């Protein structure tokens, strides 16, 4: 089943119906905020363990995370392209909706282990500009992503909302990648 995200809003111009359901926007926003703040508080409050379990075949935890983050970033780029296809800005195949959904799931599920390691082993740190932005935006990303997932559950949304939130999630992930994986590759070399 393919879903045209524009169809519902265009076919249903009901300005009066938006009023009675502020929860549609409020709940995702509140949950997203709670997720972001909760992750930050956990990262700040608990004592960083310094280490966590490692994947075989990589020289260091940093390398594992840099490559996983890069894979997530790749799927995020697929997200951008497939979203442009869905909104008709680019020519795309009929399965671009499925591509968008599954590349998004892949990016999210790949990012989760990286975030778990960050929060468990390193925690929320602010000792450097790069590290501070990475900590802040890392927490913000999962909040914004949760908000977007919850917004997606409703089909009748203003047409501009999902592109804005999706673009925000993509932009934040990009900065997170720049401040971590790219920094890692530039500092330690492109190692596995």
């Amino acid at each position, binding site marked *: 089943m393919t879903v045209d995200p524009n169809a519902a809003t265009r076919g249903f111009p009901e300005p009066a119906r938006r009023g009675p359901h502020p929860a549609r926007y409020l709940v995702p926003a509140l949950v997203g905020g709670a997720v972001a703040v909760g992750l930050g508080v956990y990262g700040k409050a608990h004592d*960083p*363990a*310094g*280490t*966590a*379990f490692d994947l075989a075949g990589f*020289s*260091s*935890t*940093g390398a594992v995370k840099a490559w996983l983050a890069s894979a997530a970033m790749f799927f995020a780029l697929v997200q951008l392209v497939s979203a442009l296809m869905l909104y008709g800005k680019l020519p795309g195949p009929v399965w671009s909706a499925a591509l968008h*959904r599954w590349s*998004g*799931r892949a990016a*999210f*599920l790949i990012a*989760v*282990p990286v*975030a*778990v*390691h960050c929060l*468990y*082993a*390193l925690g929320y*740190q602010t*000792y*450097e500009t790069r*590290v501070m932005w990475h900590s802040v935006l890392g927490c913000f990303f999962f909040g914004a992503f*949760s908000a*977007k*997932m*919850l917004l*997606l*559950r*409703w*089909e009748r949304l203003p047409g501009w909302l999902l592109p804005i939130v999706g673009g925000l999630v993509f932009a934040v992930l990009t900065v997170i990648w720049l401040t971590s994986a790219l920094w890692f590759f530039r*500092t*330690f070399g492109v190692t596995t």
Partner: protein
Amino acid sequence: MKRPGPLLTLLAGLVLGLSLLTIDATTSTTAPTSPYRDRSPSPAPLRSTVSPAPAPAATPSRPPDGDYAGRTDDDAAAVAVSVRGGRAIAYFCDGRTQESWLKGDVNADGALRLTGPHGTRLTGTLRDGARIEGAVGVGGERHAFTADRAEKPSGLWRATATVRSAKIDGGWIVLRDGSQVGVLTRDGEPSPAPRVDPRTGAVTVDGQHLTARPATP
């Protein structure tokens, strides 16, 4: 109408995250949490002249090079460590009378064990190339410290020279906020060090211009 897909995605991520966290929490309980638990009670050798056989040539993962600087937890002194190619030097300094240069090896797992004159010891762990946590034992006292990764101009500086027939040895720890902790010894007599220019290393000692250099192993 509600779609279940996005919520399932979120729940899948939540379950994955929690299970990874559980694995982390259960596997790391066996790891040593204190870097100085296994400190030997016997007095340390004054200075090891022969390093105990350098690590095997094939070192798949050597600790990353870097400089680290920070204060002791009791805020009485500063500690800086410089790591290069699996070897490290460290400087412990209270900015007034107490200072010690230490050196030793860094293991592949990030464990440091440095020794200095008069039984001074530093044990610590390099964590993810971001900071060193550990403790310095000097003069019978133990100072726990955390040293974060330092970028120039912060870090460890040293200047040695002979000024008016006195042997000058100065060490400075420049912290991230720009503050400095340094001690200058004249023929082994310590005193607070004059301020060093962290951009050029220029420092004036007894009217003589010297240049301090970043200290490396």
